[in-house]
């Protein structure tokens, strides 16, 4: 049938193809990762990259078609790439107009634990001094409800938040009463040591979730988290059980803090989470704030050692999955979501612009407002750079349009930061002005010396290499991105 044209007919006369902005990095000796500003990526070798940038990549090379459809280049055959890039770039940042959705209320600084790594707690009975007052709570609720975000999550923090449970009740009820058009959610962050059935019954009525700390096996947990009676582990495990029985299994969440003693036993820590039927674990790095720095706990430990710990843990989790145990690592999961979709995950520590203030904000027990939890920890060490104002004296505008918030946001925006702007992982990464300020007195910091950068670069590389070398892992990781 001569009526039909051959495929050659539809190839328009070739002109020179044009490159669209992209970045690249070596994943291994012979593998390169190419990414663009919306997070489209392509794995290839040096030869293809050389040909690509020299405008001599052969059109019959399968890389050509892939690179074109992933918007690394455009040519005379199609000009739709820019329309699609536009949409995806908007998608990547579309959470920004939501503005602050997580509102943390530090209802008390008092705690019956005395964890050496804790940034912010006091062993004290002085309620006047260390508990949030109703007046401060009331003003804070108003500020939280002022946020343009449709979804407002109020998280109660401490100290041990349950030591001021009456105020939690007040805040929950006032927030519900004053709310007109928001979806309200509540979480209590608690060590569960002082939880009671009555408290949980109240949580059930008001659909309040529980977030607790579980550092690993009994010995490690009790060593990390000393309290009178040395029974933190027992109390936590009992509390988790009771909370699940009252509220429902999925309403109870636990996080672990990594310490020096954790580093050698990632498998045992993961086993502990398996034992208590959690669906995954967040292998958290130790934060450099508060007592952690004062007691030199931070210095004993560095990002390289954490990364080894993370790798061991991740490999163990992959092995578990291969054996049929469904379990995931949440930090990896967050990153995978960014790799496989263009939407931001809303994970505050890995956003750019940074999540400080505009994704999460902290109302401290004394009325001061901080751009992040780390910001208030820094203040406890005498550095109030991230204090945005006070609920008693400042308006919503004063606080959220303050230079104390806008300066670090603008200065640390990764797309325009030296070394970040040309980094192949920029679209998956974030900016952390608080961390960089804490360690270098600068919102941007020096990336070659930054633990934040070292940690994330290594995690990104590891994730891509694992997916590239193992089909099973690629499928598993894809399932984690959901």
């Amino acid at each position, binding site marked *: 049938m001569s009526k*039909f*044209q051959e495929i050659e*007919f539809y190839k328009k006369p070739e002109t020179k193809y044009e490159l669209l902005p992209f970045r690249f990095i070596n994943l291994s000796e012979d593998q390169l990762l190419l990414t663009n500003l919306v997070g489209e990526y392509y794995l290839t070798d040096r030869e293809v990259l050389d040909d690509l940038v020299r405008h001599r990549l052969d059109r019959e090379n399968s890389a050509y078609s892939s690179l074109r*459809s992933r918007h690394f280049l455009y040519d005379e055959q*199609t000009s*739709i790439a820019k329309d*699609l890039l536009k949409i*995806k770039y908007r998608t990547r940042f579309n959470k920004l107009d939501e503005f602050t959705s997580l509102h943390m209320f530090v209802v008390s600084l008092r705690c019956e634990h005395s964890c050496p790594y804790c940034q912010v707690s006091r062993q004290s009975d002085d309620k006047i001094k260390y508990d949030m007052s109703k007046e401060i709570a009331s003003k804070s609720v108003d500020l939280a409800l002022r946020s343009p975000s449709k979804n407002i999550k109020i998280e109660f923090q401490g100290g041990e938040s349950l030591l001021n449970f009456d105020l939690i009740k007040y805040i929950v009820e006032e927030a519900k009463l004053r709310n007109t058009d928001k979806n309200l959610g509540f979480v209590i962050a608690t060590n569960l040591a002082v939880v009671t059935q009555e408290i949980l019954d109240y949580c059930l009525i008001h659909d309040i979730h529980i977030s607790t700390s579980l550092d690993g096996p009994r010995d490690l947990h009790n060593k990390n988290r000393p309290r009178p009676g040395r029974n933190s582990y027992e109390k936590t495990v009992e509390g988790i059980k009771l909370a699940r029985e009252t509220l429902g299994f999925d309403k109870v969440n636990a996080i672990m803090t990594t310490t020096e003693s954790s580093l050698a036993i990632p498998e045992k820590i993961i086993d502990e989470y398996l034992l208590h039927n959690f669906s995954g674990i967040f292998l958290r790095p130790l934060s450099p704030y508060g007592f952690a720095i004062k007691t030199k706990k931070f210095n004993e430990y560095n990002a390289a050692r954490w990364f080894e710990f993370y790798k061991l843990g991740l490999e163990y989790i992959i092995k578990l999955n291969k054996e049929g145990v469904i379990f995931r690592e949440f930090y990896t999961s967050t990153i995978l979501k960014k790799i496989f979709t263009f939407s931001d995950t809303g994970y505050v520590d890995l956003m750019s612009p940074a999540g400080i203030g505009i994704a999460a904000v902290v109302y401290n027990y004394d009325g001061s407002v901080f751009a992040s939890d780390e910001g208030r920890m820094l203040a406890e060490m005498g550095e109030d750079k991230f204090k945005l104002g006070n609920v008693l004296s400042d308006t919503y505008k004063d606080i959220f349009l303050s230079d104390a918030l806008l300066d670090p946001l603008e200065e640390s925006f990764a797309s325009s930061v030296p070394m970040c702007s040309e980094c192949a992982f920029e679209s998956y990464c974030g900016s952390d002005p608080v961390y960089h300020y804490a360690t270098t007195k600068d919102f941007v910091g020096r990336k070659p010396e930054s633990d934040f950068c070292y940690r994330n670069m290594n995690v990104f590389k590891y994730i891509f290499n694992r997916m590239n070398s193992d089909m099973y892992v690629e499928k598993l990781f894809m399932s984690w991105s959901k």
Partner: protein
Amino acid sequence: MLKLYGKIDFKNIAFKGWKLFYVTFNPNIPDILKSQFAFIVDNHNYKKGFGSYLSFEKVKKDIPNLFTLKNEFQYLSEGDVIRLDDNGGYACIFRLSSRYNTLLLTEQCNHYCLMCSQPPKKQDDSWLLDQSMKIIEMIPKNTESMGFSGGEPTLYGEGFVNLLRRTKLTLPNTGLDVLTNGRAFAQESFTKSIADVAHPNCTFGIPLYSHDPVRHNYVVQAENAFDETIKGILNLKAYNQRVEIRVVIHKQTIDHLIETCRYITKNLIFVDHVALMGLEITGFTRANLDKLWVDPYEYKNILSEAVRILNHYNISTSVYNHQLCTVNNDVLPNYQKSISDWKNEFVGECDGCQKKSECGGFFSSSIKYRYSDNIKAFA
């Protein structure tokens, strides 16, 4: 397979051109409505006044507007809508007993797809649009769903917008699927006029055959089609219209099916449905069979991977026109039995198969011309 149109014997025709009629077996239709009906007449039940008469036997009486039907049209039943021409043309337009009726709006098209099942024609057939405007009024108001197809319906421009508006006003509760190549929607003003109709339940089914513009343009045999189709989909979704992407799987699309699906997840994730469809051996496909045929059994792993990727991104996905014995079990949640009248036929290899009732079976054209060498009855 039903024969839905043809030439039939006629006599005493008293109207000019074409007319639409409801089919009826009921001689007691009120006089005032009779002119709208074609009455199935025999030697004993003639009543005066019907718009036309249909008979399956020789009728002795001299009856006006009489058409004699062959036995292959025995499927006609009460309430069906047919078209009769003054030169003996017969077409069954709407069958009440069919779960799904499609109106052909035109045979003109700005594509010339290698596997077109309805090869386009050049001549002006805009009377089909007039016909559709009338049929819309005759279709029962409780019809659940129906389709518009072509050719390329949007070639009518404003005429198509008017039909869509009429359809919405006349059949507000009827779900509507429009098969279009989507290119007209690259023009935002046209998309806006479609969106302004605000049909409550209309889906535009748009083919995308590759992530690669050259290959897509080759399959549809049209230059610039890819960019306009993508732009059209983007515009439709920007105006909140429902869009289904339709991928026909054959030798020219199978090699890049996974990359194509990946492209959909990365760029068109907001579409409402993706249909992955087996090849129907009819129309141009027969002429291009060598270029198009690939045994579904041979690509079943590729199909599985494509479905897995689409499922992962929560894109509602269906696999059509495949036989159960040619797909892997992992696509079963997405597997659809066909809804058309002319499918669900089986071949000798299917004898004794335990899964016939769950299987989509074959197009009759496939049985005639080409089907998988790997059909095997489930024990």
